[in-house]
Every structure is written in C-alpha cells, then in structure tokens.
C-alpha cells in the first residue's frame, strides 16, 4: 500500500472530526451542570441520575427493548427459514430472480413509503380486529417487515459460503436429513444467524420513521421520546439519554465486530 499524501490524511481526519463533533458535543453537554445555557459551568452526573428517576423514560426504554427483542426473535426465525429455503433448494433461475427482488424491496424502498403503506394496511386491518390500533403490535409487525429481509440476506450469504460439500460428506457418513440439519447446518449457520439477529436488533433500535408512523400513546420508544423532547427544546437530560444510547450502540457494534472476527479465524 502506498504512503498517504498529507492532504489525504488531513482531509480524512477532518471528515472523521465532522462525523464525531456533534456526538462529542452531546456527550460534553450531558455532564455540564448548566441547565439552560450552553456555556460550561462545571462537571456533574446529575442529569444521568435524573434519568433513572424518570419513570416515563424507564418505561420508554423498556418499550424500545421489548420492541427490538420481540421483533428480532420473530424476524430471525422467519428470515433464517427464508434463507435456507432460497439457498438450499434447486429453484429455477426465474424463481430465484423473483425471490431476490422480493428480498431487496424492503432494503431499497425509502422507509417513509414503507411506513405509509403500513399505516394504510393497519387502517384496513383495524376493521377486523382491535389489535391493529396504533401501538406496540403494529410497531413490532412493522419492524419485522424490514428486518426479515436483512436477516435473510445475511444468513443467505453465510449459507452460500458453507457450500454443499459438508452436507454431502455428512450424508455420505449415514446422516439423516434431520441429523444433517441439527449437527451440521445449524451450527455452521449460527454465526450468520447471530450476525443477522444483531443487525435486526440494531436496525430496530435505530428506527425512527416506522415507529413514528405506527406507534400509539402507550408505546413510545426512546428515539420517539428524544424527537418529541427535542422539538420542545433540548435539555441536559436529553443529552444524557442520547449519550447512553450512543454508548450502547458502541458496545453493540464493537461486540458484533469481535464476534464476527473470532468466527473468521
């Protein structure tokens, strides 16, 4: 690899600074004791402590987690099955192309259109059942809808890298279909499934648009809460909350990275 030109180095560092400047700003103001002013008045952890006393925020955090966990579990199961279905069976070229398009729709559709479509769908379904009133169930359904595709794509690429060799070897060594699935395919797919699940989980935590369109009064999530609060005016408490969310993201990303690299060895 060639040595980098100083201009490239400085441009790159400035770009990184540009990405992180706002986040650092939030982190710094989350420990600034000034409540209204943006001038530095001293270090404090009070805003963090206040967060944990705010029952509404605790409830909101719990909602966020519940939404992410439930949708991730369902999407991971459905997405993994879809990936196996696509990768391990002799589909014709046409069928393969169709499945491929279907999987990519949620990835390339602007989320706001997906949200609009879901609003309409739930509006129609409400005629049949109260379950489809705006709220947690709708949000979970919405999140699963875009998560499935991402999980399926990640697991499918993992499956493609496994190849048919080991499967044939296992059958050659007298394994039944079920035994092949349990002892060979599932363990070998697992890193892909875990990676897909982590992706789905992060996507859910990250989502704002779908939740914004489908939530009800009792199903506020952290991004929705922060958005609503910010529109009223930023407070140090929000900075503290945001910093915590960013820190959790960092932990998740680094954890996923570690996990991914360990499996590669």
């Amino acid at each position, binding site marked *: 690899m*060639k*040595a*980098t030109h100083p201009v*490239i180095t400085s*441009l*790159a*560092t400035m*770009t990184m600074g*540009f*990405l*992180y400047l*706002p*986040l650092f*700003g939030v982190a710094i103001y989350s420990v600034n004791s000034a409540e209204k*002013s*943006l*001038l530095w008045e001293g270090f404090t952890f009070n805003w963090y402590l206040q967060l944990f006393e705010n029952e509404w925020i605790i409830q909101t955090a719990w909602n966020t987690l519940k939404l992410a966990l439930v949708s991730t579990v369902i999407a991971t*199961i*459905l997405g993994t*099955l*879809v990936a*196996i*279905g696509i990768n*391990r*069976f*002799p589909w014709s070229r046409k069928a393969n192309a169709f*499945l491929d398009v*279907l999987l990519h*729709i949620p990835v390339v*559709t*602007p*989320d*706001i*259109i997906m*949200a*609009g*479509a*879901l*609003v*309409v769908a739930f509006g129609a379904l409400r005629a049949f059942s109260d379950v489809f009133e705006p709220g947690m169930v709708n949000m979970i359904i919405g999140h699963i*809808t875009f998560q*499935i595709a991402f999980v399926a794509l990640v697991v499918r690429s993992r499956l493609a890298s496994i190849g048919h060799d080991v*499967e*044939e070897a296992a059958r050659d060594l007298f394994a039944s279909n079920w035994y092949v699935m349990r002892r060979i395919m599932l363990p070998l797919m697992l890193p892909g499934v875990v990676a897909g699940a982590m992706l789905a989980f992060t996507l859910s*935590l990250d989502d*704002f*648009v779908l939740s*914004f369109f489908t939530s009800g009064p009792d199903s506020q999530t952290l*991004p929705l809460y*922060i958005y609503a609060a*910010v*529109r009223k005016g930023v407070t140090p408490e*929000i900075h503290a909350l*945001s910093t915590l*969310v*960013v820190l959790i993201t*960092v932990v998740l*990303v680094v954890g996923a*990275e570690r996990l991914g*690299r360990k499996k590669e060895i």
Partner: protein
Amino acid sequence: MGKKLIIWHGDLTSRRALIQRGLTFLSGGMLWLMLFLVIPSLVLVALSFASRGSYGEVIWNFTVENYERLMGFSAFGWTPDYLYILGRSVVVAFLTTLISVILAFPLSFFIASRPPRTRYLWLTLVIVPFWTNMVIRAYAWFLILAPELPFAKLAATLGLVPEGAALYPSVFAVYLGMVSMFLPFVVLPLYSSVERLDWSLVEAAQDLYSSRSRVFFKAILPQTMPGLSVGVVLTFVPAMGTFVVPDLLGGAKYMLVGNLIQQQFGASRDWPFGAAVSMALMVLTMISLQLYRRRGEEIELL
C-alpha cells in the same frame, strides 16, 4: 419432472418433494412480506387514485386529482409549491450524495493505508455513527450550531447571520446534517473496493498520464466503481425520503418530499394525497438511479 426420483446432495427425493420442502421453508417469511409489504404497497398505488372525504376517510372513486394537485393544479389556479418540494428533494439528495462521495474518497484511502491493527479501529469509528440513531445525530448539530458557540459567532462576524442567532434552522444546517448522516453509507462500501485496488494499474496510469486527475479518472475511479455504486444507491435512496433531518434542522422553511408524505399520513390525514406523493418519490428515485446507472456505465467504458 413430476415424481421422477433424483438425488439432491446425497438425499434421495423427487423434484416435487424438494420444491415442496423449499416452499415450506419460504412460506412464513414470504407470506409475511406479501401481507405487510407487497399488498400494502399495491394498495398504496390504488389509494393514490382515490380521494379524501371530509373527515379524512378514503373515498374509492377513480380520479387523478391527487396527481393534478401534486403538479400544482387546484381550484385556485396553478402553484408550483409541490413541484418545488419534489425538485428540492432531488437536488438535496443529489448534492448530499456528491459531497459524501467527495469526502468518502480521502477517508477510504486513508483507512486502507493504515496498518491492519489500527485499520479495524478506524473502520469501527466509521461504523459507530452508521448505527447511531438518526434523531440523536440530527439534533446533535443543534449544539454545534448554537449561537453561543464559535461557529455561529464567526458567521455573525462575517455578517452571514444576525448577531446572537443560531445557524439552524437553515439550508446550510440541512446539508450539514444530511452529509454527516449519509457519509458512512458511502465510506463503508467504497472502502471495501479501495482495499482491493490493484495499485499496479495506478502506477501504469501514472506512467501514461501526466496529470493527477487523469490518473484518478482513468485508473482509480473505474476500479472503485463497484463499491461506489453501492454507496451511491445506499445514500441517494434514503436521502430522497428522509424527513428527520429537514424536520429538525430545516424547519418549516425547507420542506422535502419526506416531510410532505409525513404530513399527509399524519396531521392532514389525507392518505390518497400521501399515497400520490409516495408514488412520485418512488418514481423519482427510480428515474434518478436509472440515470445514474447509465452514467456509471459510461464511466466504466471510458
């Protein structure tokens, strides 16, 4: 093929049984996508030809009035407001993508030239904002652009904004927010192409061409096209439909198509018009990507 027996990777079965088993695996997820994605999208298409009743309910009469309204025609004559919003969205998405690409190149080269140990650290540093919540990243600019901070003060000294005013909401803030939002979407795929770059070709080009720009366009750009294309699509599509950034950083003055759609499905409760705007967004996105694909091929052919 019917009942003809085959052996599929050591498993004796018939083609039909195999297809049936495959469909069983697919059924759950595919049914889900059909029910909550494909059918609702089709309903959205139909809805764009319906009209809104006086209480926000949908009246199923086939009409193109939503599209006429989008084009600016109404009972009160012609106004280009909605067309402005559409055009502005394309321009914002285009410029955001362009600026992100320009910034992504030095960054990708920089990361690719790091020793392997620190390379992962730098990559992780790009991935973290990628996964950080949009709302947080958008509102974080409030702090940087606040009137108390040097940036706003500098702008005030230069006479760009009145004394004591924040730099948001403004067009500038929207671009700042948009680029910081979507930059990682370009860097990550571009980096994967830069990492695999064949430097011998670049050196050969350096022998052939005297100017640096020609070396870049003839030797580097074509090689990084695969990653760059993914990055452009990943940026342009969501940038077209974004509504958080313009909503927080642009205020009411700088509405984009995403905000318009959100209004129709939210406060205005005019689903048919919202559906029509969604269709317009989808079509604009597709056309832009198609144009880009054609341009992209030209670049590769050069």
